[in-house]
Structures are given as structure tokens and as C-alpha cells.
């Protein structure tokens, strides 16, 4: 198989797998049990969102320096900023900027 065929094939199978998962719910819900779908649709998103946060940070090593402080502090900043101003761009932008600074410089070990 040539290189181009291989990478093209990978795109095809990835698209298939992805579309399968995204469309599955829509096939199962042809006859919608209204109340059930609504309640689950209401309470599943918040659980999923928190899950995705934890999932993105799953590889953080809390047992070695800097003990996940970089991530945790940045998350705390995002939370506080968002509770205060409720401005998504501000919270995300500042939080990320802080994370990048912490990550690339030695500020944290010097504070703690």
C-alpha cells in the first residue's frame, strides 16, 4: 500500500468510526420516550463537562514536583475569574496565558 493510500485509508476509517458514534443516538431514539430523554438530556451535560475536565488532566502527575500545581492553579484561576466576570473569553484567555507562563518559566517553584 502506498503512503498516500495508507493515510487516505486512515481518514476513511476514522471518519466512519466517528460518524457511527455521533449518529448512533439518533437511530436509537426514533420512538422517543419523551420524559426520559428530556431528563437525561438535562442532567447528562453537566456530568459530561466535569468528566471532560478531569479527562483532559488525567495524565498530570501529582506525586512529583511541581505536583500538578501548574494545572490546579490555572484551573482555580479560570473558575474564580469566570464566577466573578462570567466572561468566557476572559476566563479561558487569562487562564491559558497563566498556564503557559507557569509551564515555561520557574515562577511557581520560587513562590512555593
Amino acid at each position, binding site marked *: 500500500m502506498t503512503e*498516500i493510500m495508507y493515510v487516505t485509508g486512515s481518514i476513511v476509517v*476514522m471518519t466512519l468510526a466517528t460518524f457511527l458514534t455521533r449518529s448512533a*443516538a439518533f437511530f436509537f431514539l426514533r420512538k422517543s420516550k419523551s420524559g426520559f430523554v*428530556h431528563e437525561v*438530556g438535562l442532567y447528562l451535560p453537566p*456530568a459530561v463537562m466535569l468528566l471532560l*475536565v478531569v479527562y483532559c488532566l488525567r495524565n498530570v502527575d501529582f506525586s512529583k514536583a511541581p505536583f500538578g500545581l501548574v494545572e490546579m492553579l490555572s484551573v482555580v484561576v479560570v473558575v474564580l475569574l*469566570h464566577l466573578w466576570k462570567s466572561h468566557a473569553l476572559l476566563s*479561558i484567555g487569562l487562564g*491559558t496565558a497563566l498556564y503557559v507562563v507557569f509551564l515555561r518559566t520557574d515562577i511557581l517553584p520560587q513562590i512555593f
Partner: protein
Amino acid sequence: MGAKPGKAYIPTTKTETSSAFAQAFASSLPIFFGYVPLGIAYGLLFQELGYPWVFATLTGAIVFAGSAQFMSVGLLAAKAGLTEIFLTTLFLNLRHLFYGFSLFKRYQASWWKKLYLIFALTDETYSVLTSKQLNSASEDQQYCFFVSALNHFYWIAGCTIGALIGSQLNINTAGFDFALVALFVVLTIEQAKKVKRLFPFVIALVAWTVAFQFPDSWKLFLALSICFLLISTPVILRGVRND
């Protein structure tokens, strides 16, 4: 402000004079700041594989799945078989199975629009759409479509730019992908404000504690399945008791 029993309460905006597109643009702007840097990071990584840059664009446009695309870079580098790539992508994206539950009613546009909406249902699009719904159904459908399309565009742009400039410049993107974490944190807070209940988050942490014990490719799907079970079981039981 409270949920009517048995009816999902998705907050609707009171008097919005701005168009569906304008609102979609505003809602997707945080995604812009997540997708473009992340897409660039993917493009840079992809470019190291040695394939023509246009394949990064194609992947971003046709697959449109961030975490799966990142995983695929490692798989392609190791020349993994297509079956393995298929299965890995399937498991990683199994969480999307549950997204249809929340958006099923709203995705009722013409068949080709509905197809595109389903195709473009990423985590971030799901997060944005479940936090806001427009008053009129037709406006809301436009809103959903524009949010999806804009996010798609940002992602394609990021992947393309990354692959194109990757070979030319040496940009340090270390830490940029934290934008995605920040985004999910913000969306979690938004959901907390709408739902005003603690139990979905407790369920999420319980689910993760269990799922964390398993191999990496299983973690997310398991955690989501447990969440789904824990949330839907009381609903079912309540329905059974009321019969």
C-alpha cells in the same frame, strides 16, 4: 426559575434582537481560541509524519475529531493497521453516543442539514449548544447550524495553518492546548448555573474514580457509561413507580 417536572429546561433567551448567526458567532468565539491553537498543534505534529500538508486539512475537514486526530498521529507514525485505527477511534469517540440524547429534539432540520449537524457534533459543539437554545425553533436550528459550521471552520483553519507553517517556523506551542481544559471548566460552570444541582457532578466524580482504574483507551467511555447509568436509572425507576 426551575425545571418543570418531566420537561427539560434548556434556558431560552428572552428578547434577542441579534441574528442567529451573530449569536452563534459569539457563542463559538471561545471555541475559536481553543480550536485554532489546538488545530495548529495537530497540524505541526501531523507535518512531522512527512505527508503532504493538505492531508492535515482533509483530516480536519472530514474526520473533525480532535482527540481522535491527535491519537492517530501516534498510530500513523507506528504504521498501525487500518483496523486498529478504526477501533481506537471508535472507542475514543464512543462518548458521542450520548450526545444525541440532549440534542435529538433540536436537530430536526432538512435531511442534509441534519446530517451535517450530526457529522459535526464534537464535544465543544455539544457543550456550547446544550448551554443555550434560541426561542423560535427555526432560529434555533440556524443557530445550531452556524455554531457547528463555525467550529468546523476554526478547526480546519487550525489544522491547515499548523501543517503549513510547521515546516517553516519553529513555534513553541507548549501549553496552548490548556485552552481546551479552560473551555471545559467554563462550560462546566455554565452548566452548574443552569442546572443548580450537585448530583450530576458527584456522579461524574464517582464515575471517574471507577473508570480511572482501567486502561487509557477505556477510561472516557467507561466513565460516560457509568454517568449515563447513574443518571438514567432513577429516571426509569421513577417512571416505573408512576405507572
